[in-house]
């Protein structure tokens, strides 16, 4: 068997189990709420339109955005609950995913339920009243049983949607089959991407067929059929729940944002913790802002961020102080304002940098961003999804008077491909990115110092700040990773020829760190 396929198989029980549990919980909660709302909606036209309208509106929100929106909402709720009841809860991972998917599951069930009940022959309603049923008896004995086949069709639709959308819960920190897709996309492991897609689609198909069995069991009043479907579903959920008790609370949770370097560093830290005798779990593929808030809330224990990111995005500063001063102020601010311990810098910088093909730069005679300014009116800039919303962009633009002919945004893998294939003239690369050397790109100098320093810093949550095991695990990494080493490690993943991806690159990096330490 192909190595990548074997690696994907190995984590399938974990990913699939989490995916099933999340989907089942969302469907269960969604179904209960949908039934209540359906009942309210068929009884009262005043309730019907608002309910259907809101459910339809929820459906128009892209599912990824819906998941992302629940994180800050829950975070606010958690801090309120902490203040009022003295107890918070984790706003990361399961809960936001559950709530978003629950909302997402409701429209088809409510719509079909309402249609099913209101579409019943009025003679049946008259008969139910005529024989002396109460409203409740009419609902339970006549309306719901007769609308059940239509309702079940809605449940099937909802289940397929939820199983598909659950792959998008990875960026908010919930493990799912989406982990294959997000990390695979990042590290160009197409086998993993495809594996995740096929696994999610297969799961959706199987669940759809089992629900279909229940549906036809109801329609044909065949109890055996319905029971087989229900039992198979229950068995599937139970099987997923069995190994689920794995990660206990004493486990160190390491966060990672969604790019190669972060996957490698989280794997490296996990290995270090394991080497010191601790248990480590990784929450990878987190959104940039989510990773920091998760740490502040104690949902994750440790992760690597970048000084410039924290300076601009978290502290909200727009000035550009010298490197050492920035690090000092940042460290003090983090401890004072958020209780977060900045353990130290890893030794390399991952800053935004404008990069272009060497031949293109020579052709245009461009070496610095100053040289670029005069030419920018005829050039197209490719950027990642974040860049134009960050303070670097206006700072850079205003400092040099940049005015590009075109701007395009890409997922970073495709951004490098775009400059390679000359679709764009230059890109917003990262200084530690292995592809800069590999693709023979040149980084343009920033003589005016418009771009913030982006030192990689290790952050530890307040409750782990004085943890001796974690300190022992992290210390050997501080100042130990120069930029050439990080670039090389990143490149091992990004060129996509290392079948085991980030964990292997992390082991290689650990060996290199140890080798250089001995020298």
């Amino acid at each position: 068997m192909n190595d990548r396929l074997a690696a994907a198989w190995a984590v399938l029980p974990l990913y699939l189990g989490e995916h099933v549990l999340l989907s089942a919980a969302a469907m269960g909660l969604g179904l209960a709420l949908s039934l209540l709302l359906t009942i309210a909606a068929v009884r009262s036209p005043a309730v019907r339109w608002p309910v259907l309208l809101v459910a339809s509106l929820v459906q128009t929100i892209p599912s990824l955005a819906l998941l992302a929106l629940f994180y800050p909402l829950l975070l606010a709720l958690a801090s309120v609950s902490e203040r009022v009841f003295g107890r918070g809860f984790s706003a990361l991972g399961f809960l936001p995913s559950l709530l978003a998917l629950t909302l997402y599951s409701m429209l088809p069930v409510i719509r079909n339920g309402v249609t099913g009940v209101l579409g019943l022959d009025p003679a049946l309603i008259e008969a139910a009243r005529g024989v002396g049923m109460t409203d409740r008896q009419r609902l339970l004995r006549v309306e719901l049983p007769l609308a059940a086949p239509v309702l079940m069709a809605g449940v099937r639709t909802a289940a397929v949607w939820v199983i598909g959308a659950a792959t998008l819960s990875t960026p908010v920190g919930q493990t799912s089959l989406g982990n294959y897709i997000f990390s695979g996309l990042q590290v160009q492991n197409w086998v993993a991407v495809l594996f995740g897609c096929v696994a999610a689609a297969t799961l959706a198909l199987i669940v759809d067929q089992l629900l279909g069995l229940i549906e036809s069991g109801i329609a044909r009043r065949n109890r055996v059929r319905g029971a087989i479907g229900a039992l198979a579903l229950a068995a599937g959920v139970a099987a997923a729940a069995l190994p689920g008790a794995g990660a206990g609370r004493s486990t160190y949770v390491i966060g990672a944002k969604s790019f190669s370097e972060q996957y490698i560093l989280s794997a490296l830290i996990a290995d270090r913790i394991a080497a010191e005798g601790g248990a480590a779990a990784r929450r990878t593929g987190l959104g940039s802002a989510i990773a920091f808030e998760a740490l502040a809330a104690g949902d994750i224990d440790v992760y690597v961020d970048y000084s410039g990111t924290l300076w601009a995005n978290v502290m909200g500063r727009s000035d550009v102080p010298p490197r050492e001063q920035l690090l000092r102020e940042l460290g003090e601010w983090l401890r004072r304002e958020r209780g977060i311990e900045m353990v130290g810098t890893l030794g390399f910088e991952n800053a935004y940098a404008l990069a272009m093909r060497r031949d293109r730069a020579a052709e245009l005679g461009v070496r610095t961003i100053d040289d670029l300014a005069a030419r920018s009116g005829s050039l197209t800039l490719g950027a990642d999804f974040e860049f134009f919303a960050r303070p670097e962009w206006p700072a850079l633009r205003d400092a040099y008077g940049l005015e590009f002919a075109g701007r395009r945004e890409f997922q970073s893998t495709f951004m490098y491909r775009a400059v390679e294939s000359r679709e764009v003239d230059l890109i917003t690369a990262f200084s530690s990115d292995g592809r800069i050397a590999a693709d023979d790109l040149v980084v343009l100098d920033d003589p005016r110092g418009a771009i913030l320093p982006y030192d990689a810093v290790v952050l530890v949550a307040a409750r782990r700040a004085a943890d001796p095991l974690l300190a022992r695990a992290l210390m050997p990494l501080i100042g130990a990773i120069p930029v050439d080493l990080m670039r090389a490690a990143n490149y091992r993943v990004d060129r996509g020829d290392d079948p085991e991806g980030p964990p292997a690159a992390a082991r290689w990096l650990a060996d290199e760190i140890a080798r250089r330490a001995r020298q």
Partner: protein
Amino acid sequence: MIELRGVSRAYGANVAVRRVDLSVPAGQLVAIVGDSGSGKTTTLKMTNRLLEPDTGDVLIAGESVRALPPHLLRRGIGYVFQRIGLFPHLTVAENIGITPELVGWTRPTIAARVAELLELVNLPAAFAHRYPAALSGGQRQRVGVARALAAKPRIMLMDEPFGALDPLTRDALGAEYRRLHERMELTTMMVTHDVLEAVLLADRIVVMRAGTIVADGTPRELMNDHTDPAVRALMDMPRRQALRVAALLDEPEQSA
């Protein structure tokens, strides 16, 4: 037994029934006839509170129907209507047994009552376990009548009960119901647009027009003498039809 006192009911600006008074003594079978829109169905439905009157009151055995919650009232009154409304997800036996079940009879009592009713409405006992979809129109309405009778009501309300059936079935079922009415000492209000059916089945005929009662009497009284020309034309129709039918016969069967 049933007494309507000045009941009125409007649907928006359209007044369906205006201040109707009607008293039906125990044991009587009253047919309410009239054109569509004359208010006969509305009058019937106000009796078991499927519709609430805007004004006036309905008394059953001397007590206002508002003394009971509607569902309890309806459990004591049989209701049969043209579209039957058998529950498609329940068997014939479950359909017939629904009101006794709601009232809280025991299973064996219900089963015995279902068997008894199937026999009363001339259906084979084997039908008990069939679903309504497997029955003909006439068989379904027999089940509808059995369902209405199941919890032993004293009063039956029937809204065009045989209106959707073929003529032979309709005639047979009408006659059978008349015998049930006598045997079980029921009080029945039956809405029909078929004057012949009213004449042949009812003890008394009430003619409605535009929401009011314009004639009230035994079939014999109304057929032989009425001052209102429209009522006279209506009540004369069975006789005129009988004459036209008689003219088609080759030879008179009887010459008495």
